[in-house]
């Protein structure tokens, strides 16, 4: 009696399970009648940024009537997690933002990206430097199309600097320290910091590390994930010493980087903080948060100050190259679209929409803003260029290090514990 009941139940469950699996077919990106449809995930939520993608897709669809592309805008902080989930579930978007480094390597190793080495058009190759492609290369193959060069540095309000009696942008950390004191006297927050998102706080540590550590040391650590070289601890101590003067805005721990007027970019945009350390996407983000949603007129840029006695080459710069990848399952038209947005016209439109330096050399010529020119100048003169460290170190260690830096800035740990946390992360992954 009991047995048959169980059997009946099991049969029902089995039938249902079959029905469930029957429904879970994948979504086809191309259909039989020659029409191709693709999805695109990008991280811009600002008005002009979304407009750029809409226009680019419309122009591409006009030139290729058989292609239709659906653009999906995903908030920057949500993008990585959603993308990984989508890639793992086999339901990935066809075209998506690629941050490079360890994350790209993991996607390549899992066979999730399309190899576009042979698909980069000769025109694209002519206009985009080899160095930019290097950031999208792994195991001698190109896995993404570079779209923008986004080196980091300090973006500041010239008006607030002037009001504090600062004439020249700081060149060393000592200069910066004395400028912080001057700015504090005028009642504004010297430096805005979006520590809620962790990585903006961690960038401070990464830049100190770039000044303290030789390039070869950083590359070695990227492989070994062991932070035993003394320069890492030195960088952590530098940052702790720098933060002891309380240069950051009040409540930086729960300040986000890009969302709303209370974010770090919003504080700079509304002249409540004098500067922030960011990548070159920052002018565009700041522009979207000013009261009139126009670029901040008095925005300036200076490279991260030098640290005396460091082993890093002076003038070294850190930054990313934003690229776009095709999913391995994407139709071949995906590569055409990547070449299309790397073209000079689209790159000029990109620069105007995002207020960020384009990767295309022809398009770079139309850049007029002095701060973007300064960014490009610092980038082109740099003796050593590193990717963002959290990208280089990979998701696990990068994530742990980001949080460890926040812990130290909040007074919860010290430099030694920061290095320990980075070393410990290896256990979990």
């Amino acid at each position, binding site marked *: 009696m009991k047995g048959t009941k169980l059997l009946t139940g099991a*049969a029902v469950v089995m039938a249902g399970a079959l029905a469930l699996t029957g429904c879970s077919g994948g979504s086809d990106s191309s259909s039989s009648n020659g029409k191709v449809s693709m999805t695109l995930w990008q991280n811009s939520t600002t008005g002009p940024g979304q407009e750029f993608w809409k226009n680019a897709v419309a122009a591409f669809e006009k030139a290729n009537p058989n292609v239709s592309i659906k653009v999906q805008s995903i908030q920057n902080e949500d993008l990585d997690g959603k993308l990984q989930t989508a890639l793992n579930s086999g339901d990935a978007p066809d075209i998506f933002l690629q941050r490079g480094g360890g994350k790209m390597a993991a996607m390549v190793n899992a066979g999730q990206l399309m190899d576009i080495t042979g698909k980069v058009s000769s025109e694209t190759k002519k206009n985009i430097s080899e160095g930019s492609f290097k950031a999208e290369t792994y195991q001698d193959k190109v896995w993404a199309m570079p779209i923008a060069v986004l080196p980091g540095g300090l973006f500041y309000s010239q008006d607030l600097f002037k009001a504090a009696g600062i004439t020249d942008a700081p060149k060393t950390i000592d200069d910066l320290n004395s400028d912080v004191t001057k700015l504090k006297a005028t009642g504004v927050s010297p430096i805005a910091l979006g520590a809620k998102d962790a990585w903006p706080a961690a960038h401070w540590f990464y830049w100190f590390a770039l000044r303290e550590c030789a390039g070869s040391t950083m590359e070695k650590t990227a492989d070994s994930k062991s932070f035993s070289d003394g320069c890492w601890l030195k960088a952590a101590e530098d940052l702790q010493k720098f933060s002891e003067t309380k240069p950051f805005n009040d409540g930086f721990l*729960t300040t986000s980087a890009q969302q709303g007027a209370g974010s770090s970019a919003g504080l700079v945009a509304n002249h409540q903080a004098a500067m922030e350390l960011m990548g070159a996407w920052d002018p565009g983000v700041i522009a979207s948060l000013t009261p009139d949603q126009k670029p901040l007129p008095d925005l300036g840029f200076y490279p991260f100050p030098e640290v005396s006695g460091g082993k890093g080459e002076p003038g070294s710069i850190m930054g990313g190259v934003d690229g776009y990848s095709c999913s391995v399952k994407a139709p071949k038209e995906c590569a055409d679209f990547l070449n299309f947005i790397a073209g000079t016209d689209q790159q000029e439109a990109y620069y105007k929409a995002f207020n960020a330096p384009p990767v295309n050399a022809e398009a770079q010529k139309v850049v007029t803003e002095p701060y973007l020119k300064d960014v490009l100048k610092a980038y082109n003169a740099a003796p050593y260029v590193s990717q963002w460290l959290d990208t280089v170190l990979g998701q696990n260690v990068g994530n742990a290090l980001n949080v460890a830096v926040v812990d130290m800035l909040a007074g919860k740990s010290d430099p030694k514990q920061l290095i320990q946390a980075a070393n410990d992360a290896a256990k979990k992954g």
Partner: protein
Amino acid sequence: MSNTRENTSTGILPTSELAQHGGSGAVASLPSGPRRRRRTGWAMRLEIALLAGPAALVFIAFVIFPVVIAAYYGFFRWQGYGPATDFIGLQNYITILEDSAFQQALWHNFLIVIGSLVLQGPVAILLALLLNRKMRGQSLIRVLIFVPYVIAEVVVGTGWSLMLATNGALNGMLKNLGLDFLVHDWLSDPNIAIWTLLAILTWKYVGFAVILFLAGLQGIPEELYEAAALDGASYWQIQRRIALPLLGPTLRIWAFLSIIGALQLFDLVYIIWGQYVASTAGTSTMATYMVANGRNAGNFGYGNAVAVVIFLISLIVALFYQRFVLRRDTAGAITGDRRTGRKNR
């Protein structure tokens, strides 16, 4: 049915029987009418399969299956790309239990469990007693108390994080009132943040407790109050000796729901403190630890192991509570009290 023990211990007739006597709420306690005649085997089996099948299916697909899969992945070092191959036994579990960040998260969960019970319980009981009296504007007050519970967590989290920010509305108001000494970093100061969280939780969930208690109070028949009043009992004596004891089952169920909710707390913390800084601010819970060290770090094997640990902790707490606290309320339904069980079958 099985209330004889409670009868003698409290000296009060059990709710269910009273309801029958009063004839008001038909609490289903006695078998209604003669038992249905047994139908032939197959028809009955088909009926059971049809009725229970969909629920069983959903339960297996979305509860049992994920738990089993999580337990499986918890034994691997797995980045979430491709199949899991790097078997490491119990290493993930050892790392979790040794990780001070997890111990802190567990401690925060414990604080939230206790804090929710201690703060919400008494407040909700007083509000329920108040609202149980006939008074003007009663339904308006009920709605106002219940509104926070109905608002989505995301809205609540965003709203509070804007108001409590360092330069937010609350600190602005305190400054304008000249109460500068009360101005704090409500969300960023690790010494304060957990209390801020508890205050928000109380505000949000007290409405739920009040509604439960009100329902419980409405189930207490009027006659008892009248009889007590005739015997000369004061208002507080009546509440203390009649309302509260008869509210017992409701209280115990509410406490159960509150404990489980507190153990699994995730959304409010995640929205107010974001993906990264909950542990720094001292408001991390086991669930935010799981997301931070599982998904954000890309260590899906480790994250699954954390999920299993949370599941086991919740399960143990739930079983203990049912065994020792809820037993008399749910006798026969969940714990399978043998005495009544035999009588029914």
